[in-house]
Structures are given as structure tokens and as C-alpha cells.
């Protein structure tokens, strides 16, 4: 460093995901997707899947080596499930990272302002009172609406108290709304104990019934939400110096916080609507990136998407194989694998720092 003094100015660069980390992340995701396609009760090899994939590309005149049922297993069962897992995992990790930045709170997760409790309440209402068989359509819609409504309520309460200027009142309002809705959800659930199992299965999360329909349902929300959040990655770095200083640097902090919370909420609610409540991804993945690569949100946001996607795809593979043919709730897997892994990362990075 000192050699540079006197010659030219010091090197200054804005933080960004470098080429090596981009490659590592994309390779991880590719690996996770391949594992997701290959692993299952019916053995189908990577080579066969690759040739089958090429057969779907027009003008290549490759014929698929798979029979009709294998084709269906790979492209109608496993692939949509892998894609949905990637979308949900990437979204939850991105939302968690954004919440942590917006609230300058390392413990923030995508459920901080009540999305989970609201979605849970909405889903429980449908499961308990909805007519038999409507679940497929109405359940995602009800949980999505419940999640968004909960955060909206938290925001309005927080704003009426603190004028939207401090994050503490907003978080407290979120905790309040979440507590109320959780109580309401448990009340409805206990009153209708015949549907207890179904409610629990939903609450613990899973991609069991994933199909292309689910993928298409969440895709627009996730795409919009992810675009807004990723475009504001530098804004989150500025917010790291506090509201007052961010204002003195020219940012409209109140408006930006509303926009970022809205985007993260929309994406999270969409993810929750199709997968239930999957914990741990939103809090652990961003911290993993932060500890291993960089503390800048310009690095954390994009890498969290890819790492969160890979993590959830792999977690889902475990969820459907460990107790096969039964399935474990995916939230159990994310915590069971994620917690020790994160403890290890925490130990090694902290002791070497």
C-alpha cells in the first residue's frame, strides 16, 4: 500500500461480486439442480437427462433415451419442483438480506413484519372452513393475501405511532401484529382439530405438490420483487450509515424503506403461498455470504439469491429422500442442516478474523 503513495491515487473500487465468486455460486446452483433432477426413487442418469434435455431443443434432432413415464418424472415432477425450490429459496434469502439492510438488524428475517403469521392465518382459515377440494387454488391466494395484509397492518400501525421515521416502532408493530395473528391462527386450528395435520403440514412448509402451475403463479411476483430489490443494492449500503446520514447524503429514506419492505414482502408472500413457512433460509444464507465474501449489500443481495436457491433445492432433495417414500417438512431439513453448518462457518470465520 505504502509503495503506491506519491505515485497516482489510491485504488478505490465499489464493492461487487467478482468473477470467481460468480463462478462458484453458479456452479453450486448448477450442481444443486442436477442433483435435484437425478435423485429420486426411479433411477435416471445424468447423461440420459442431458440427452433428453437436448431433445427438447428444436432443430437438434436428438432423440430422448427416456420412455414416456421417465420423461414425465424428470420434466413434470422433478424439474418444476427444482425450479420452484430455487425460486422460493432465492426469494427468501434475498428478502431476508433486504430486511436486514433496511432495518439494520442482523436478526431480521423475511417474516419480521408478520408475513408468516398472516399467511399462516389465511391458510388455516381456508383449510378449516373452506369447502373440500378448493385448497389447490384458494390456499395460496389466502396465504398470500394474509401475509401482505399483516405487513400492511404493521406498517400502518408503525407509521401512526412513529411517523415512519424510526425502524424500532415498525418492528414492534410487526411483532404485535404477528402475535395477534398467531393467536387467532392457533384458535381456529384448535377449534377445528380434524384438520390439525393438514395445518401443520402447511405450516412446516414443503414443495410436495409442486408443478409448473405453482412456478407460473409465483414467477411474476418473485421476478418483480427481485428486480426491485437487486436494483437497490447500493441503496442498502447507504442505509447502513443510518437514517439521518442517509438523508444527508440525499436519500428519501422513508420512501425507500417503504418501497423495499413492499418488494420484499410481496416476494416473500408469493413464496410462502406455494411452499408454506420455510424458516432459516432468509436469515442464514445472507449471513453466510456476509461472513465468507463481503458485508456489502452489492455482494450479499445477488449472491444470496443464488446460494438460497441452491440451498433450498438441496434441502428439498434431502426432505424427499431421508424418509422415502414419506417426506420430511423442508423447514426441518433447512434448520437441521443449516444450523450446524452455520455454526461451523461462524466459528471458522470469527476465529480467523
Amino acid at each position: 500500500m505504502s509503495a503506491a503513495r506519491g505515485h497516482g491515487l489510491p485504488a478505490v473500487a465499489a464493492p461487487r461480486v467478482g468473477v470467481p465468486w460468480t463462478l462458484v455460486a453458479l456452479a453450486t446452483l448448477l450442481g444443486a439442480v442436477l442433483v435435484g433432477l437425478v435423485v429420486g426413487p426411479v433411477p435416471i442418469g445424468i447423461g440420459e437427462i442431458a440427452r433428453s434435455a437436448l431433445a427438447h431443443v428444436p432443430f437438434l434432432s436428438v432423440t430422448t433415451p427416456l420412455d414416456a413415464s421417465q420423461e414425465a418424472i424428470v420434466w413434470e415432477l422433478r424439474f418444476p419442483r427444482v425450479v420452484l425450490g430455487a425460486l422460493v429459496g432465492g426469494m427468501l434469502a434475498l428478502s431476508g438480506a433486504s430486511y436486514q439492510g433496511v432495518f439494520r438488524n442482523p436478526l431480521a428475517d423475511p417474516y419480521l413484519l408478520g408475513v408468516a403469521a398472516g399467511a399462516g392465518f389465511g391458510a388455516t382459515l381456508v383449510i378449516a372452513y373452506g369447502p373440500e377440494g378448493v385448497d389447490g387454488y384458494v390456499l395460496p391466494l389466502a396465504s398470500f393475501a394474509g401475509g401482505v395484509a399483516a405487513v400492511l397492518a404493521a406498517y400502518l400501525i408503525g407509521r401512526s405511532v412513529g411517523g415512519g421515521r424510526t425502524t424500532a416502532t415498525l418492528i414492534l408493530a410487526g411483532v404485535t401484529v404477528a402475535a395477534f395473528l398467531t393467536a387467532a391462527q392457533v384458535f381456529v386450528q384448535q377449534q377445528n382439530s380434524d384438520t390439525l395435520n393438514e395445518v401443520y403440514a402447511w405450516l412446516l412448509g414443503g414443495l410436495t405438490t409442486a408443478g409448473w402451475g405453482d412456478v407460473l403463479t409465483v414467477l411474476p411476483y418473485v421476478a418483480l420483487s427481485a428486480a426491485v430489490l437487486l436494483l437497490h443494492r447500493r441503496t442498502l449500503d447507504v442505509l447502513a450509515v443510518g437514517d439521518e446520514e442517509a438523508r444527508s447524503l440525499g436519500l428519501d429514506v422513508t420512501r425507500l424503506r417503504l418501497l423495499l419492505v413492499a418488494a420484499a414482502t410481496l416476494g416473500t408472500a408469493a413464496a410462502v403461498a406455494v411452499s408454506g413457512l420455510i424458516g432459516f433460509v432468509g436469515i442464514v444464507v445472507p449471513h453466510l455470504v456476509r461472513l465468507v465474501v463481503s458485508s456489502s449489500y452489492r455482494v450479499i443481495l445477488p449472491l444470496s439469491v443464488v446460494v438460497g436457491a441452491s440451498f433450498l433445492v438441496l434441502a428439498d432433495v434431502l426432505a424427499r429422500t431421508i424418509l422415502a417414500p414419506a417426506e420430511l417438512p423442508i423447514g426441518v431439513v433447512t434448520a437441521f442442516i443449516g444450523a450446524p453448518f452455520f455454526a461451523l462457518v461462524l466459528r471458522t470465520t470469527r476465529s480467523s478474523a
Partner: protein
Amino acid sequence: MSAVAFESVSVSAGGKTIVDGVSLEVERGEWVSILGPNGAGKTTLLRVLAGTIGFRGGASLDGRRLGSLRRREVARLVALVPQSPVVPAAMTVSEYVLLGRTPHLAPLAQEGAEDRAAAAAAIRRLDLDELAPRELGSLSGGELQRAVIGRALAQAAPILLLDEPTTALDIGHQQQVLELVDRLRREEGLTVVAAMHDLTLAAQYGDRVVLVDRGRVVAEGSARDVLTSERVEELYGARVRVVDGVVVPVREP
């Protein structure tokens, strides 16, 4: 044209008047120190100047009415060095200084070559070359203060606001920081408005002091004229003697 012009500016919060009809002019290139006991409204005055809180009355920066300026435009005119900055511990000094370029970037844009050059120049200017790759959390109080001033300098605003810039520093670093600010003021033509705690240092640096109490301007002028032992004793509830323009606290015998 003055860099700063306040005409009976008032600020209230929670039914309490914090700044009460303050009028104040600061010339370009001038250093004005705002003095007053704790809770007098010094920080609030700086926040009005930085455009981060609402107020009543008339205020203009560089001849432009504060109310008519967008937030980004204010940030291009005024840079704030807060009393206790929020420090993202794992951010490097050079990343931190680069954040000063925020008001110069188009919305959602990243820093370009010009911004990197401005930040590099600020780093060199504050002798932060060796600290540039270090994390903020690893800096000493004096080093951190220099990094914050570096960020303000990268902001390239003609008006520099300092909120009690020497509070956390030992006597040597207090002098170094104030000398640095004075050098920047002379060489870059900055206007400096500083809320000051230390009356001795306030008398030694800057052209003019403004003494405020309970939101009002009590006196303004040269430190020698304003800081009389009677005034300081009354406002601060202190026992002092003023020796050769320097306020010295004394103990009851």
C-alpha cells in the same frame, strides 16, 4: 451572496420549541462555530442546514431557498459530519468514502470512474491511503473521524457541517482534526459551520462564534467579544475565568 442565510427559523417537535426564531448568515469561506450548553439546539440547527428535518421560517443555501431544493440537491451543497456517526464495522474506509458520492449518482446507478477518482482524491487529501483497505471497525477514534470527513469531502459540497467534531478525541487529535478542517476550508474554499462543545477550541478556530441557548441566539461575533466570563457562567452554570480570550474552568476555593 451568503453560503447560508436563516431568517427566523424555528423547529418544534412534540409540542416543544427546539429552535426559536434563529436568524443567521454565514459568508462563503467563513468558519462559524455554534456554541451553547447541552440541549441548546445546536444539533437541530445543523439538521435544518443539512435538510434532514422540517422547519418554519426562511432558509437558503447559496442563495437558493431550502424548501425549493430536492434532497439530492441539498446533499450536493451541504455535507454533514455527525457527532456520533453510525459505523458499519465491516465496511472498508474506501467503500465508506465512496458513499459520499451518493448525491452525484443517478438513482439506482453505481459509482463511475469520476466518482472513484473523487473518492481517491479525498482519501489522498486526508492521508487515508494506508487506511483505505481497512475496516471501519478496526479504526481508532481519530482515524474514524478522518474517514467521516473523507466521506464528506468526497461529497464535494461547498458547505461542511461538523457536529461536535472533537468530542471523542484526545487533545492531540482534537487539534489535528480542527487543523485539517481549517486547511481544507482554506484550500478548497469550503464554508464551515461547526457545533462546538469546547469553548477554548471554538475560540481558537473559526472566524465567528454564535452563542445559542434554549433555541435562541444569545450573542454572536468574535469569540473574544462573545465569550465573557459572565455569559459563560450564566448560560453553562459554570465557574470560569477568561484569560486572554481562553475560557478556563475554575474551582471554588
